[in-house]
């Protein structure tokens, strides 16, 4: 279990967890962007390692993955990227299992986790690896002290949910709605349901899939989330920048501003909740 991630959730403040694809749209700009969202208030950063078949992503993140791959991103370069970053918050690597499995001279997840740990990665999220197939990766994570973060879907219920909770480390990624990643204009009712379903579990709950604005963030934190995960809303800014060839700094400023909006929303949500419980 990563102490750094633990510390974030123990702080009492709601965690703001932004996501970007490493190397999108290119190595140098991406470094600036990740650093900008930290300045904007990130508590943990999920950093995508792009895979050619991202079956859990919507079109926004799919496009980001294509940009990053075309700019030459590889697992090896990803670790250099992580080491080059000048950020203090914990980094969580989000990728698909085949890249973890193939890394290094032998097959199996251990080499990847070892290298990730060396690069300073605090945890992993693997969207195509359900608990059933996770034993080898969990063993490697335990060995090298990484969190293996599981996703709890709206369809994860009953016995299945109980079994999963036994294995949780770090936080759970509460999938706010069915479907793929992508910014939406509303907050899903499924979010409230899921948070209610998970209320009795003590593990920190970070909600993701579809959060786009400070308002969304506020609503979700006020509904009981311990953190919010925001990807597509930020990747949209990177995409716009890439499309219009804006200077890196301008895009970085926009990302920082968006991050602040989301972080403030989360804080507001927590403030409200705190206010209610204090009075």
């Amino acid at each position, binding site marked *: 279990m990563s102490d750094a991630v633990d510390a974030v959730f123990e702080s009492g403040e709601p965690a703001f967890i932004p996501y970007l694809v490493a190397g999108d749209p290119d190595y140098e700009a991406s470094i600036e962007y990740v650093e900008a969202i930290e300045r904007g208030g990130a508590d943990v950063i999920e950093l995508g390692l792009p*895979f*050619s078949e991202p079956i859990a992503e919507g079109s926004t993140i799919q496009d980001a993955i294509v940009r990053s791959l075309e700019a030459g991103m590889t697992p090896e370069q990803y670790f250099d990227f992580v080491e080059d970053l000048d950020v203090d918050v914990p980094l969580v690597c989000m990728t698909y299992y085949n890249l973890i*499995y*193939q890394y290094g001279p032998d097959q199996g997840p251990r080499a990847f986790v070892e290298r990730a740990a060396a690069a300073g990665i605090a945890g992993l999220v693997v969207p195509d690896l359900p608990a059933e197939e996770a034993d080898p990766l969990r063993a490697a994570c335990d060995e090298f002290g990484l969190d293996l973060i599981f996703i709890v879907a709206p369809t994860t219920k009953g016995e299945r949910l109980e079994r999963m909770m036994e294995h949780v480390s770090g936080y759970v990624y509460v999938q706010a709605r*069915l479907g793929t990643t992508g910014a939406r204009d509303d907050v899903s009712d499924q979010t409230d349901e899921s948070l209610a379903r998970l209320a009795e579990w003590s593990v920190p709950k970070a909600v993701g899939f579809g959060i786009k604005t400070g308002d969304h963030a506020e609503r979700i934190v006020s509904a009981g989330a311990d953190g919010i995960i925001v990807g597509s809303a930020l990747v949209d800014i990177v995409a716009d920048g890439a499309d219009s060839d804006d200077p890196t700094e301008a895009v970085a400023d926009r990302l920082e501003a968006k991050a602040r909006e989301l972080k403030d929303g989360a804080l507001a949500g927590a403030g409200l909740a705190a206010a209610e419980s204090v009075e």
Partner: protein
Amino acid sequence: MSTDSDGKFGAYGGQYVPEALMPAIEELRDAYERYVLENEDGFMDEFRERLADFGGRPTPLQHAEQLSERYDTAVYLKREDLLHGGAHKLNNALGQVLLAKYMGKERIIAETGAGQHGTATAMAAAHLDMPCEIFMGSTDITRQRPNVFRMRLNGAEVNPVTTGRGTLKEAISETMRDWATNVEDTHYVIGSIVGPDPFPRMVRDFQSVIGREAREQIKAKTGRLPDSVVACAGGGSNTMGAFHEFVDSADPSSADKSSGQHPRDRVDLIAVEAGGSSLDVDEKAGVAPNSATLSTGEEGVLHGARTKLLQDSDGQIMESHSVSAGLDYSGVGPELAHLVDSGRVDAVNVDDEAALEAFHRLSRLEGIIPALESAHAFGYLEENPEEVGDVTVVNLSGRGDKDLETVVEETEKRDLDVDVDMSVFREAER
């Protein structure tokens, strides 16, 4: 029925899917075990009856006179080209759509490459009155246009997939995304023995009617089992469908074979993959100009299962290529990967040109226009007639009507060994 009840085939198989899909997959596994394996509510009886009346089963096992003479061996064709829709694909599509109905699902989605699985699913869905959406790569939409028409005529929506190179791999990813969104009321009809468990087992079971019939038919016609069964392999559903009933078979005739030329203690199972234009890969471009996954692929995880894959050294999936859209896939069924590793199935391959020649040859000599996919199996026969023994069954997995435009185009580009006069094609264009 299966020795693979944990969903693993040796090291292959499993369920590598997003958590959101896991409950649906568990539900499906349960339904598969009850309805398919246990025939609950008479599911299998209804399935078999519909396969007969709507699908046209049994399909014949035909002695191919001209090929037998050409190769000096008894060649039998398992005529899946005569199944409704023109390919073996209906065996599986009908089974799954019916299962979805038994499960109370209200919507069907499917991916398609050649369009054959899409048309089979659209037909089955129309037959069983289920709304249906098909995801198809935009490249495949162009090269298999008649099949797009057919799906639409059967009332299915056809959703073009423009990511990547727009072929089967991308269509599967996109269908998984739809499934992850609509999993509660939707069943995803996977088109081959790929994907997470229980799909590889279930699709194989629905397709194994091919081999079951062939086994009875060849015994009735020759009094023995064949020395070999030959089938093309993309994902591998026609392949395992043809092989399954023979995997455990010793050849009862081998004991009293006087010639001693092919003393076999079992039926040889030969999976013919698409060699494309070359077996070399371009790692830099991420392209393998073939789909010879069993011969050249490496173990990995894709589309829900651990299996052999065309991938670069980092684990990124490579674009495959074949002149036949239905074989153009970077993965392969985990069971087939396992049987190849264990030596029970021979993985071989045949390139685009040999497949085209075989297409023309079968059309000319036997009066049967095969699917380009199936043509690969006949390409193998031409190149290795001595490998198949005295009696061989070749799975003619589909008919080639869908391939006419492609064949005209690809034939004109090449100087083939078979003598094809293309002029009337051009005349007819006028």
